[in-house]
């Protein structure tokens, strides 16, 4: 009993040490990020022949209400040469129809699909010479990963970028990512972008005109959470090349390496984390120098779920995908061959992310037990909890500070105050719910091990729901 108490204490201490170290790395990098964003001439870059060409892959499943706006937004990016490939994943609504009518698309007689990656056969590729940079693939339903693979097979350019159909890219987002890529084109295999919550912002002509925090509670919690994860976490992880995930909403990849690792894996959610783990594994096993970068100045705005039901479904799906990825790749953990990935990232993700809720619950039970058996005093408990709370709060404030140092996207003081308040409220309920959802996700995983394909499709349907209230 006592041993478990000690263990729990060390667990909490370790997790906080890791959090703070990562945050320190983030702080060390933030001024570099600020300067490179401030002094780069993105306008000049965005017209240059020398910038590598990119294929944007946009999987769409039942997005008829929002897809036009998103495609229009994607077609007006500040970027010299790129193409937009929308993959209609067997939508049951009129996604393909609205696209065809809006852009006057006609089927291509001989679409040049390479078979670099296995994917389901497609129905047709649509194109209109008047919009030379837009392609629409129509294929039977096969999930998000399969759509991305089909997109890769059609894509004409050496870099690919996956973008969710319910997200809006900032005009400069792609050129900012390309700038990061051009720093080191030989070694960069993937770059992640910063994902922010668009709820509450004023959106006009497919662009965010005025940045503001969400008014509703659930998106607000997520805004705090995203800020902490992206600025506080991912900047730090990328600086030691230990980034384990590039958000599926907006990431850039070297096509040759994505093909080399066999493309996206279908059947389970979490394909965005999976592809990054596979890239790490491939590069390390082949002893190639590489980096997985993070570019926080490239921003993608996404519609966050604003009801409990949709949010909990999303989080359960993440929990499910995360567990699957961990089980698939557990051999990397504690294996020195995999360097930072094997010694830090994977163990951290398994012990402190995937299993976190179980430790939390057992820790809580243990504490209750101790108190009941008079083995400890409530004051000790209060101090323990307070330390926990304060360190968590400090991390949130740190992320906010990073934001204000480098980006200053929130112009209103009231928004900052709200951020700080919600960072506090998060510890009373929301954080616990996060653990609960993760456990529920794990339960789903264990139950539905065999019937996974349908679950993924189901979850996509849920996801597209979130985009619709816009």
């Amino acid at each position, binding site marked *: 009993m006592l041993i478990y108490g000690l263990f729990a204490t060390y667990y909490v201490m370790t997790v906080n040490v890791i959090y703070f170290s990562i945050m320190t790395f983030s702080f060390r990098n933030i001024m570099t990020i600020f300067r490179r964003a401030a002094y780069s001439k993105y306008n000049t870059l965005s017209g240059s022949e020398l910038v590598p060409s990119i294929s944007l892959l946009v999987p769409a499943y039942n997005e008829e209400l929002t897809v036009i706006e998103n495609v229009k937004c994607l077609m*007006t990016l500040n970027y010299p040469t790129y193409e937009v490939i929308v993959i209609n994943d067997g939508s049951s609504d009129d996604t393909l129809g609205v696209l065809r009518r809006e852009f006057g698309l006609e089927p291509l007689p001989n679409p040049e699909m390479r078979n670099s990656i296995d994917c389901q056969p497609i129905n047709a590729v649509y194109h209109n010479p008047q919009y*030379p940079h837009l392609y629409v693939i129509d294929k039977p339903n096969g999930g998000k990963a399969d759509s991305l693979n089909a997109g890769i097979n059609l894509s004409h350019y050496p870099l690919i970028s996956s973008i969710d159909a319910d997200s809006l890219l900032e*005009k400069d987002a792609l050129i900012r990512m390309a700038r990061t890529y051009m720093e080191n084109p030989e070694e960069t295999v993937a770059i992640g972008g910063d994902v922010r919550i668009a709820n509450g912002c004023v959106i006009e002509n497919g662009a965010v005109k005025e940045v503001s925090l969400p008014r509703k509670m659930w998106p607000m919690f997520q805004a705090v959470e995203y800020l902490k994860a992206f600025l506080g976490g991912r900047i730090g992880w990328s600086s030691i090349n230990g980034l384990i995930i590039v958000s599926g909403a907006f990431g850039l990849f070297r096509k040759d390496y994505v093909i080399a690792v066999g493309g996206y894996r279908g059947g389970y959610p979490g394909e965005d984390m999976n592809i990054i783990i596979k890239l790490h594994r491939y590069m390390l096993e082949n002893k190639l120098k590489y980096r997985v970068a993070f570019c926080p100045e490239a921003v993608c705005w996404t519609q966050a779920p604003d009801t409990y039901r949709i949010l909990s479904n999303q989080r359960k799906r993440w929990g499910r995908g995360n567990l699957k990825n961990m089980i698939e790749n557990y051999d990397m953990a504690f294996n020195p061959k995999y360097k930072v990935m094997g010694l830090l990232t994977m163990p951290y993700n398994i012990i402190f992310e995937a299993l976190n809720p179980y430790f939390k619950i057992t820790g809580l039970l243990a504490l209750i037990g101790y108190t009941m058996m008079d083995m400890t005093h409530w004051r000790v408990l209060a101090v323990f909890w307070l330390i926990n709370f304060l360190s968590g709060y400090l991390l949130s404030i740190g992320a906010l500070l990073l934001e204000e140092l480098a980006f200053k996207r929130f112009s209103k003081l009231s928004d900052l105050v709200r951020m700080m308040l919600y960072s506090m409220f998060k510890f009373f309920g929301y954080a616990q719910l996060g653990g609960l959802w993760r456990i529920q996700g794990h339960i789903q995983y264990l139950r539905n091990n065999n019937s996974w394909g349908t679950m993924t499709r189901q979850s996509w349907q849920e996801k597209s729901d979130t985009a619709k209230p816009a």
Partner: protein
Amino acid sequence: MLNTALQSKQEQTSLYMDIEQSVKEAAYETNGILFISCAGGPTYLEKQVRGILESQPGVNPKIWGGEEPGSLFILFPGQTLDAVHFQGLLLKQRLQESMPDLVVRMTLTSFPEKKQLTQEVLIKMEDSVKQQASGEIHIFTREEMKTMRSRILIVEGDATVREFLEIRLQMQGYETAVADNGLSALETIESWKPDLVLTELNLYGIDGLPYIHHIQQLQVPAVPKIVVLTEQRVEQTISLCFQNGVDDYITKPFSPVELDARIRRSLNSLRMNLQGLNSQHIK
């Protein structure tokens, strides 16, 4: 609101097309045109004018009512300038006899050749009648056609560059308007009918090439000249732009002197078209 504005623009355009069509069908090579504008004129103005004109033998006018009340367009087939001027004087006198308070503004001219009468000239004439300060009869000459201030629409997302271009072009004596995104630019082209659009390709709202294409599909009497001023230096895009009928393509950073020269050249070629020397007809 926007819809009705658009509708009236389309009516206006079809009006010019009607006039042009009537001239084509006219038996005479020479044709006189008279524009009348009476601010706050009565609704029965058209009937009255018709009465005055039809009481004289040998005059076969065609009359159209403009979109604003009190504005009229009259075509005198076969009439030379002095005859049209006489009709103008007569109309003005008769109208003011019955309505002493009415301020009658007129612009008139006569075209010795049919093909000189184009929609562009009609637009200029209508502008000149609106710009008149007092109730005079203004005779519209070909020289005036040449010295008329050209209208340039500046489409640019960057506020600093936009302001710079606006100030510079105004100092050069052009009339300017600005738009900061592709969609409002398209609206402004329809309503303001610029002679030339100086535009960035990289705009909010609409992709560059479809945007150029859209400009050419607009329901305006004369498609404006398009000069692209952009950061975009990809050769393929440049050649696609020229294929789509762009008149000139300048990349940033640009030389303002060169820009002036290129704008002047594009406008000159437009003038040549207007004077009928090169009677290539647009729509």
